[in-house]
């Protein structure tokens, strides 16, 4: 069971996250928590939620960074969740078979009834996708909303992961990476979608679209600084003052 699928899954479901349009509002994380605390991995336990040291299980965490320097510098908001890797070490290290990758669509899940809570899978993940639920004694992780995307009891338009459904900036996209015509494949192709830490060899499925290059138009101040006119005015300024 903790062997990875022997044949590549026919469908590779995953997310494309657009770091250009993500505004860092945390709505995806909040809706993820809301859905999944009642979903198959429920509950996503919180301890001391209104006290001084709140802690709890979240499948999605939004970091904000400054990247680049000088005029190339910018703020990048970065949602971090399970990448449903093809070469998932979190699956193969599991001693019980609780951690597994689905043969049909590649989603990586935890069977909580088999999990002994040894935490080794969370050590094996460089992306920090797994969080231990101390009150339940088992490991928890993003399910790619497996209980939404195949759920025939909700309107078809809602059969996408909760984080995708709620994103107000349309920065999150869900689909099948094996289908070259899917939105996720097209976006990855057109925008140069990147895998995270490809050098680690985990072959993650999810892709992140890098921020678009800022056009190299110098600011108005820089543009006028070196013109003859401004040099003349500076000379006048020095003479008169």
């Amino acid at each position, binding site marked *: 069971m903790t062997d990875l699928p022997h044949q590549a899954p026919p469908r590779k479901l995953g997310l494309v996250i657009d770091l250009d349009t993500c505004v860092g509002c945390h709505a995806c994380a909040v809706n993820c928590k809301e859905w999944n605390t009642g979903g198959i991995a429920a509950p996503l336990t919180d301890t001391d939620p209104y006290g001084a040291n709140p802690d709890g299980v979240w499948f999605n965490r939004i970091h904000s960074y400054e990247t680049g320097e000088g005029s190339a510098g910018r703020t990048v908001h970065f949602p971090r969740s399970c990448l449903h890797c093809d070469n998932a070490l979190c699956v193969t290290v599991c001693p019980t078979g609780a951690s597994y990758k689905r043969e049909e669509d590649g989603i990586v899940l935890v069977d909580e009834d088999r999990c002994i809570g040894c935490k080794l899978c969370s050590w094996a993940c460089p992306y920090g996708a797994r*969080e231990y639920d101390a009150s339940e004694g088992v490991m928890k992780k993003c399910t790619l909303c497996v209980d939404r995307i195949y759920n025939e009891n909700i309107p078809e338009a809602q059969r996408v992961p909760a984080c995708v459904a709620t994103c107000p900036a349309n920065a999150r996209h869900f689909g099948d990476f094996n289908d070259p015509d899917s939105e996720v494949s097209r976006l990855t192709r057109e925008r140069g979608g990147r895998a995270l830490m490809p050098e680690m060899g985990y072959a993650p499925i999810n892709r992140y679209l890098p921020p678009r290059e800022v056009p190299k138009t110098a600011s108005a101040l820089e543009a006028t600084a070196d013109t003859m006119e401004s040099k003349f005015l500076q000379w006048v300024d020095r003479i008169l003052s």
Partner: protein
Amino acid sequence: MHPAYSVIFFTVASGAGYGMLFLAGVLALLERLPLSPWFAWPFFIIAFALVSAGLLSSLLHLGHPERFLKALTQWRSSWLSREGVLAIATFAPTGLFALGWLFVVNDTSDIGPVMQVLALIGSLLCVATVHSTSMIYASLKPIPQWHRGDVTVAYLVLGLASGALLVGLLGALTQTTTHLAPTIAIVALIVGFAVKLNYWRSIRRLPRASAATAIGMKPGTKVRPLDPPHTEPNYLQKEMGYRVARKHADKLRRIAGTLAFGLPLAALLVWFATDGVLAMALAVIAALSGIAGMAVERWLFFAEATHLVTLYYEGDAATD
């Protein structure tokens, strides 16, 4: 990485226990294992107590210890599962060997083919079990300080050294053993010291992933954390963000080096030239100091390890 005391105790205790059981097989095959009940009974009681207490302690840190039997099922892919299977399998030949030694064998130089086979299989399984323990850590790619071949060498050699120190102590206290166990201890301590010195020297600067590739930027892009995702430390930071300050690490390395290697080596070398109560005292010092030092070494093994997930929280400063 957070140094969990249960795991430190488990790896040090089971390493010493398997080291003793390994030596029992080797000494028996060399026709040098004493038959005296004053030696043999405490030997096997201590060895099995160390191994069992270690295994129980490793069960205690689980979220659902009652499901431990499930952990024996995934030996095809999981080193943790292999360790469990091998640890349990090792009880059979070593247990039968102990019973044979205590109740059947009456001539050290003629233990018979059955005991020879049990000694050989038992010793090999001891090595395989400690090897699996080390591979649980050495197989983890996100922790560069663990994902190294010398981690396995250190686990095996330190297990042998601590086992040999205990066998040497038992021999000195019961005045039954030869110089063989202390000699093995000295060799293992010297090799172990060399391996750990090289490990400590080389883990300070390891090539590894950067914050840029961690968040999907071009390699080489400067990335500085601006706003964290949450205000209080979460599981990831508590479990994997633990890091001992470098100045404390230096001090602890000196303490570990002195206690685990320096003091036991000095005590054992003097021990060869002495006898009586002084020799016993030196053997006690060597064993206690060695095992205490190995516990410090194991604590450092966790506390000095940095998990790649810290890149997300600390940026490239995490790997400095």
